[in-house]
């Protein structure tokens, strides 16, 4: 497929203005790590923006970083690490899951997909850290929104709109994000749980405690067996995991308190620094459900207390494996490749039955992603409003058309 390699925002503007005039749809690409995410597109051209790379402003005490949209995440992580800071929303790395090992995820891609990680419950998602941007809209015009300071309400918060729009509203060229200090220490309290519903109780108790839990996950027995992390792998059944982060005296105290508090559910264990890091990274990147690669993988966001019920319902109607994060609010489900409609009906019915939420088909072959709604279908008035918003930013529908919804 022919690719335009734009070297700056101005050239992006020229390509888009041409594409708009000629009604030529464009696939917008930076690192290319998430090309297998979303609905397949029928575009004849690729707009490659990978040249828009590099950190332009970073002053650690201001908690703000500005970079070209195609700056590799690894470069940003490295710069932040030098100042003991981090991207606090813990963006997931789905390269392995999506069969894109070797590609380089970029900050723009992370923001455009509104990624987050286990710390979502405490620190928010990409949307919550996206402060400002420059972008080219579907008319080929370069414009800016937001600012380069952490607190700003001047004009509409278009950052929110662009976070999770999958590049369908414009091409980000420069982005400003909020960054935060890295916690000095981190620990995990592991509580053995035989039942999913007990696990939800444990996670809720942890999250509702004053101990500022920054990760709350449950791995059922079939998943713990697969884990690389020693203590988790050794546990004979399911485990609830609670992470605390902060200065040493604080994490020592809080993990001890949690261990005491939850001891009645079973003998709690404390995981050290390196095991904790490997474990939450594996959770963040969905490694425990990545194999075998032909299974469908779904990501569900639901009411936390209903997480176990949703997962059980799904497992009752299709061949499914799952794990819970966000205290039950995030469910990762892997479904057999033989399931009809990739298990969409089972998944979405379960979500609807238990208080609502939404499900995304994160991994499936292209033909399946073309046939099954990858993103949660929107009710009528909301779908119409969504189409009007698209119209306002990309009236010719040339930017990643159909990636999220048909016609958007």
């Amino acid at each position, binding site marked *: 497929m022919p690719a*335009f*390699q734009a070297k700056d925002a101005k*050239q992006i503007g020229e390509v888009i*203005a*041409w594409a*708009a005039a000629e009604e030529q749809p464009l696939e917008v690409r930076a690192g290319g790590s998430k090309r297998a995410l979303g609905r397949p597109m029928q575009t004849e051209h690729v707009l490659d923006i990978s040249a828009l790379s590099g950190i332009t402003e970073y*002053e*650690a*005490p*201001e908690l703000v970083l500005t970079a070209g949209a195609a700056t590799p995440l690894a470069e940003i992580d490295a710069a932040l690490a030098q100042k003991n800071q981090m991207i606090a929303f813990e963006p997931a790395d789905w390269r392995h899951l999506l069969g894109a090992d070797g590609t380089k995820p970029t900050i723009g891609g992370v923001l455009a997909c509104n990624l987050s990680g286990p710390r979502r419950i405490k620190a928010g*998602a990409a949307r919550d850290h996206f402060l400002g941007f420059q972008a080219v809209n579907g*008319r080929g*015009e370069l*414009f*800016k929104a937001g*600012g*380069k*300071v*952490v*607190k*700003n*309400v*001047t*004009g*509409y*918060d*278009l950052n*929110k*709109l662009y976070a*999770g*729009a999958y590049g369908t*509203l414009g091409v980000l060229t420069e982005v400003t994000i909020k960054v935060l*200090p890295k916690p000095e220490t981190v620990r995990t309290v592991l509580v053995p749980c035989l039942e999913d519903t007990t696990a939800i109780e444990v996670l809720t108790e942890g*999250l*509702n405690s*004053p*101990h500022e839990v920054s990760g709350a996950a449950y791995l059922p027995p079939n998943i713990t067996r697969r884990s690389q992390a020693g203590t988790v792998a050794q546990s004979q059944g399911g485990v609830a995991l609670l992470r605390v982060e*902060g*200065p040493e*005296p*604080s994490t*020592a*105290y*809080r993990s001890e308190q949690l261990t005491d508090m939850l001891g009645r559910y079973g003998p709690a264990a404390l995981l050290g620094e390196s095991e904790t890091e490997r474990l939450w990274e594996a959770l963040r990147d969905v490694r425990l459900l990545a194999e075998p690669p032909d299974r469908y993988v779904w990501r569900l*966001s*639901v009411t*936390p*207390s209903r997480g176990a019920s949703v997962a059980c319902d799904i497992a009752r109607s299709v061949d499914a494996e799952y794990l819970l994060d966000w205290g039950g609010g*995030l469910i990762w489900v892997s479904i057999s490749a033989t399931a009809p409609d990739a298990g969409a009906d089972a998944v979405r019915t379960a979500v609807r039955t238990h208080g*609502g*939420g939404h499900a995304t088909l994160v991994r499936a072959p292209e033909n399946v992603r073309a046939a099954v709604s990858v993103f*949660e279908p929107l*009710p009528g*008035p*909301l779908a119409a*409003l969504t189409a009007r*918003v698209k119209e*306002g930013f990309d*009236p010719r529908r040339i930017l990643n058309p159909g990636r999220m*919804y048909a016609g958007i």
Partner: protein
Amino acid sequence: MVAMPAPDQAVLTRREEIIAALRQIVPGEGVIDTVPERRAYETDGLTAYRQLPMVVVLPSTTDQVSQVLRYCQQNNVKVVPRGAGTSLSGGALPLEDGVLLGMAKFNRILEIDIPNRCAVVQPGVTNLGITTAVQDQGFYYAPDPSSQIACTIGGNIAENSGGVHCLKYGLTTNNVLGIEVVLMNGEIVRLGGKYFDPPGYDLMGVLTGSEGLLGVVTEVTVRLTRKAPTARAILLGFPTSEEGGKCVADIIAAGIIPGGMEMMDKPAIHAAEDFVHAGYPLDVEALLIVELDGPAPEVDHLIAKVEEIAARNGAVTSRTSRNEEERQLFWAGRKAAFPAVGRISPDYYCMDGTIPRKALPLVLARMREMSERYGLGVANVFHAGDGNLHPLIMYDANKPGELERTEEFGADILRLCVEVGGVLTGEHGVGVEKRDLMDSMFNETDLAQQQRLKCAFDPNGLLNPGKVFPKLHRCAELGRVHVHRGQLGFPDLPRF
């Protein structure tokens, strides 16, 4: 003064008919048309601006809101939503030819869901009302604007309000899970719920902070935060604002995000101390209150670190609260800063810009110069953690021309904020107040793009017009696509 859009004479002529139709939708006392009763709604927290609304409507159900909006859209009648009317930017300023839609009757807490750490409330519930309802269970609603006794959660959403704790706990937008909104065409949409990150475009995110221009919020699901077991504060005094600013930067560079970090300049310190006798040092140029909250071992550990950083940065006063009473006393002066300034000046005007923190000494110095030039005093309180500055300009509205001079002074301060890399407003919103300054931060293309979003929600521009945008463009004009067909205009662009 900022001018509002010219009233639609056709609507004013039909006033009686419109009121009768609205009474059909909202019966009884829900439609207010007498002058004395309407007077109560003529201004909000920006009291320099006043306008009697054509009629006030107080709906009590989502269905009524939907019918009112649909009627208004069909009849080309403008609508201004209103919560408690504490906006400091004139966001709820009525229009002569508009319906003022008061949301006060939406005052019920619908559900408290502790297992899911959230509450479902109606938009007219006050910010503090949410915390009051859940504090017995050890929870609170984190964003805490100083107006929290009075302001409503609907208004908070419209303004994306913050408070002294928002560096650590986030603004309104980071603490809302779901909303129900009525669009100008009467359609009711639900965005989000008790789960994270609504599907599709994050329209909830963009409605938050949209200053009542995109839709009327009729229900809100907020996140609840567990109250920290301990909080302690340190009171620090510095001979210069440079040293105070450096201390703030060093605290953050040391990896500490305090629960609250507030700075005051000399005029603000004196006004506050004279008023509440908090024991503030009077011989310093900058006073810093740093509050650490969390489990006791963490708070004690961090307090010691902050004390050490402060000493290194030349703090001449350093006092750490030993008990809750003392902590409250440290805050008492800061919390009373606005009324304290109100005591020493007949009137004051509260500004709200954000700057990169490192620019603080420069901004304060330039502000002092301006203060002399305009002949008006200014006191500063500063959310030091996030760079949000609140200069309070002191003036006397009874002196001819002084309000105008104050507005000019304020505008100069905000332009300065933008010049040093900051923004026009950190939490109070653009409203009418800063509307005509928008072009100091955004160019025509930026503003046109924002207005195209407005068109998707309200194509006839009937919801809260005259706010935020300096120029009103017709959606048809904004939506036009100019096609320049022809050759690819970039021969040197590599294509592979």
